[in-house]
């Protein structure tokens, strides 16, 4: 197993890669790889494939991983399978991959001289398997025109807890009813050091900004506890919430999908239950 790292900034990964079984790390250095650029990165992968002739190339199924591998596949004119869960390698590979953000799986065949794929989030644990790794420099020839898609400017995120990293998320759905009616959810979240999330119905109604949306087309969350208030649990929302360690559903409908899938549930109106929880926390804290 060999690895490819792009840009000087990634050179420091060599030790960790050897600890995970990588015999040779090919380090690509080029002025156009100083910051992220999907075309320059994808072209570098494509050129590395032409030189190193691997049987397969794997990357992580992140926004960048999928984007760079799609670029490499387009340049090599080969297939690319995104978000893979498992592989049976033969001449033609049998691959299982994620559809619908993780609620369905697709089995497919992959026929190609070089097989490009990305691995779905959390499909595998990173296991240590130390080898004596070496590094080699790989040079690439990049068209200066590819500078056109390199990050030109960055705006750093303000410090603080985000939806993606919060230990507690209090989510509200259509049943919350209005933008103003999120105030009790905000109050509870603030009391517990968490943040407020919402379903797609809420953002489509304009009640909250899309940055608060938990779901397939919003943010994937993984808090210690997700309190899903008045959320029915449609596929779109569920795939964004399913990595939560524990889920508490608060819903008037005991048959709601979110109630069935949750670890804990309270059957009742969120407008009454949420303030009661806040009051109980205040009472215990004195």
């Amino acid at each position, binding site marked *: 197993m060999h690895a490819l790292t792009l840009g000087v900034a990634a050179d420091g990964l060599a030790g960790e890669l050897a600890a995970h079984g990588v015999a040779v790390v090919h380090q690509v250095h080029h002025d156009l790889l100083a910051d992220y650029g999907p*075309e320059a990165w994808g072209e570098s992968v494509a050129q590395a494939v032409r030189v190193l002739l691997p049987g397969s190339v794997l990357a992580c199924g992140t926004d960048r991983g999928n984007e760079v591998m799609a670029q490499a596949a*387009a340049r090599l004119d*080969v297939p690319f399978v995104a978000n893979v869960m498992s592989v049976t390698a033969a001449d033609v590979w049998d691959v299982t991959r994620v559809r619908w953000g993780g609620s*369905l799986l697709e089995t*497919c065949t992959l026929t190609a001289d070089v097989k490009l794929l990305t691995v779905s989030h959390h499909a595998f644990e990173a296991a240590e398997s130390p080898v004596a790794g070496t590094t080699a420099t790989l040079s690439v020839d990049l068209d200066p025109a590819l500078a056109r898609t390199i990050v030109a400017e*960055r705006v750093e995120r303000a410090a603080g807890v985000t939806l993606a990293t919060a230990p507690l998320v209090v989510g509200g759905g259509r049943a919350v009813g209005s933008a103003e009616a999120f105030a009790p959810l905000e109050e509870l979240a603030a009391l517990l050091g968490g943040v407020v999330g919402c379903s797609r119905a809420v953002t489509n109604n304009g009640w909250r900004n899309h940055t608060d949306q938990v779901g397939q087309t919003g943010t994937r969350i993984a808090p210690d506890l997700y309190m899903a208030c008045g959320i029915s649990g449609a596929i779109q929302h569920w795939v964004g919430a399913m990595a939560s360690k524990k889920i508490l559903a608060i819903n008037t409908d005991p048959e709601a999908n979110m109630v*069935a899938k949750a670890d804990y*549930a309270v059957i*009742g109106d969120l407008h009454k239950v949420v303030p009661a929880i806040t009051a109980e926390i205040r009472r215990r804290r004195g």
Partner: protein
Amino acid sequence: MKVLVCVKRVPAPGAKINITADGQAVDTAYLAFTTSPHEECAVEEAVQLVEQHGGESTVLTLGPAEADEQLRYAASIGVNKAVLLPIDSAEWDPQRTAAAITSAIQGIESADGPFDLILFGNESADAGNFQVGVRVAYALARPIVNGIKGIEINGDSITARRHSDAGVEVYTMPMPAVLGVKEGINLPRYPTLKGRLGSKKIEVGQVVPQGVLGGQQMVSLVQSAEQASATVMLGNGPEAAPAVVDLLEELGILK
């Protein structure tokens, strides 16, 4: 400016996605269809860009004849022209799809002149292959960046914003260009009655899709395994609050 937006017709599932008995497709007998969410926002963005900068917008889809519905939805909120690449199934593999869309775009551009901007959704809601837009852009020798949640036109160049865990990445590229947009770039409008009526009258152009089978071929669909766990009921109504707070303490959330 001339803007093209490429969309996909997808089922609109509720709480569960059922699969047909032969395992070949999502059972859509009781489902409505919609424009894949990122692409719904791409359609809105195309309309807004033309409202701001003048010009015209075109919507294109490769899909079954029924995808006419998604083309007319786009027209109902203000897209000017529509093109269907009809296929006999719900979808083609991503390489074949990209080849067919590329060839259709080349055909349209050689007759009517180039598009300044082509929009795709970041990925389709159903297949999620994350590559059709990238392949089309590469074949057309145009720049593309995915994950875009903000577009600004400045003369011949485009500034595009992409959100990451670290903040916002800003890209500036010359037109013609291609962008993969994400939901959140805007809030799509609802069609007006006038828009709906108008959309029934537009002529949908048809292009016979050209493309050979790619190296990734679907065999079947299966449900992902879900561990069935019994839900612990903490009670009914506000009286359940003490049990909820006990749980918050037990999980270490309330310290």
